[in-house]
């Protein structure tokens, strides 16, 4: 029981203990963090069944929020594992018609978009997958996503332009964004 109490402690206080561990590693060791994300990925069907059972938009946003520190981790391998998990989550949430609370989480203050932008800044190599994730979670509001919403987080014009420059190529290559543009037309 004591192990579970300590695990629960990591989730207390708005996940701040968990965020600390995921971002900085367990005493600098990131392997357990990568394994945790891989384990969640392996059990994603069960996680989805729990979300359906709980029937709560808050449960969706809580799950997405718990996993968010991975996007801001100092270790690229953790960030890549987190992105892979989010890409799968987006597909599953869409199929279960649970994308509305997910989009709300994505656009909220310190939500998914904020974490994505931190990830690009820390690990520019992740930009391709992060762009796909941004398009998946922000599909409901694509125009604002790359304009007003990004500008909210990137108040320095130069920083904003640098991010746009990084995102532009993967965005034009993305099948998701092409579909979205075709829909708009």
């Amino acid at each position, binding site marked *: 029981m004591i192990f*579970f109490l300590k695990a*629960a402690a990591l989730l207390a206080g708005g996940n701040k203990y968990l965020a600390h561990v995921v971002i900085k590693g367990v005493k600098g060791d990131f392997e357990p963090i990568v394994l945790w994300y891989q384990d969640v990925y392996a059990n994603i069907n069960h996680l989805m069944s729990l979300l359906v059972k709980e029937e709560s938009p808050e449960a969706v946003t809580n799950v997405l929020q718990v996993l968010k520190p991975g996007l801001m981790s100092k270790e690229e391998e953790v960030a890549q594992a987190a992105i892979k998990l989010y890409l799968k989550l987006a597909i599953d949430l869409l199929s279960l018609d649970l994308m509305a609370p997910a989009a709300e989480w994505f656009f909220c203050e310190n939500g998914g978009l904020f974490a994505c932008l931190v990830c690009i800044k820390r690990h520019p190599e992740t930009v391709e997958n992060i762009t796909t994730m941004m398009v998946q979670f922000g599909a409901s509001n694509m125009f604002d996503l790359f304009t007003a919403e990004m500008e909210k987080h990137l108040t320095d014009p130069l920083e904003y332009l640098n991010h746009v420059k990084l995102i532009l190529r993967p965005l034009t290559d993305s099948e998701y964004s092409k579909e979205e543009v075709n829909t708009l037309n």
Partner: protein
Amino acid sequence: MLIPSAAVTSQKSEKPDVDGETTIGETTSTTGFFIVSLAKNLSLTPKQVNGTLIHLTYDLLFKGCGFTCRRK
């Protein structure tokens, strides 16, 4: 994430939805899912957590929600 009592206990039985034998696939709430997966993968041992953190968890999980639990 705040830990509301309902998230870690079964509202019907008032028993914790995780115990020392629970596997990830047996969890019955999303919070339980993360508690079990974190405990498993981060190999949490008593040495790694100080008393304050345990007390914080204990209060959050049980004391504040009227659930009685005797610590070992």
